[in-house]
């Protein structure tokens, strides 16, 4: 499904049930050169992750539904996906065992905080001069 135009364009999946926050974060990251996919909850995120390669997952922890962000991160880990994981939540949260494979960014965050953290967790080759990678319709 993904048409690779440049190996340097990182694909980021944002999982956030606050649509306006998701929208603002996605717009900011797109303008910084990332290819951004959006999911409203963990169920949507799993469908996306099972369908296409995702370089980084940026997920809220506190979401309605059967699976929260911590469980989603564990699901990614169990499937041995190479997706880097960043979790976010209002205030400090104990990540538990997830701290071994996930980074944490407290809300409220600045758009630049997300971008900088993404660039720090992604392999260097993916974060250099990112270009738009298109999805074939």
């Amino acid at each position, binding site marked *: 499904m993904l048409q690779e135009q440049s190996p340097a364009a990182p694909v980021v999946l944002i999982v956030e049930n606050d649509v306006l926050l998701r*929208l603002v974060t996605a717009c900011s990251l797109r303008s910084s050169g990332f290819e951004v*996919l959006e999911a*409203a909850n963990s169920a*949507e995120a799993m469908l996306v992750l099972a369908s296409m390669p995702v370089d980084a997952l940026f997920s809220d922890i506190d979401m309605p539904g059967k699976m929260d962000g911590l469980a989603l991160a564990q699901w990614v880990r169990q499937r041995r996906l190479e997706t880097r994981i960043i979790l976010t939540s209002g205030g400090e949260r104990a990540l538990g065992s997830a701290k071994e494979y996930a980074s944490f960014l407290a809300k409220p965050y600045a758009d630049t905080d997300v971008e900088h953290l993404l660039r720090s967790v992604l392999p260097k080759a993916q974060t250099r001069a990112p270009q738009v990678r298109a*999805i074939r*319709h």
Partner: protein
Amino acid sequence: MLERVPHCPSPVVLIVENDVLERLSKAAYLRRQGLEVFEAADMTEAIAVLNKIAVDILISEVSLIDGTALAQWVQERQPTTQVVWTAALRSGQACRTPAVLH
């Protein structure tokens, strides 16, 4: 007062679609055409966006629960917004829904 997307001369599109893979595929295609595209997973998300941002074109699935109510809501509050319906048709099924409602 609704906000225009800053520094954006392109038409602003809101896609309301509960199938995430369908939604991101449509959104990626329209972004490649140069449009500014926002995504909503359901009517609640759509209303949250429409309450905040001036949208030029709303694309909504016919079968979406309360889809027609959403179109009516938009026409009352953002009368300049064009509403475009999408529908998945079975083989041999005719589309009786106008493509553009308003």
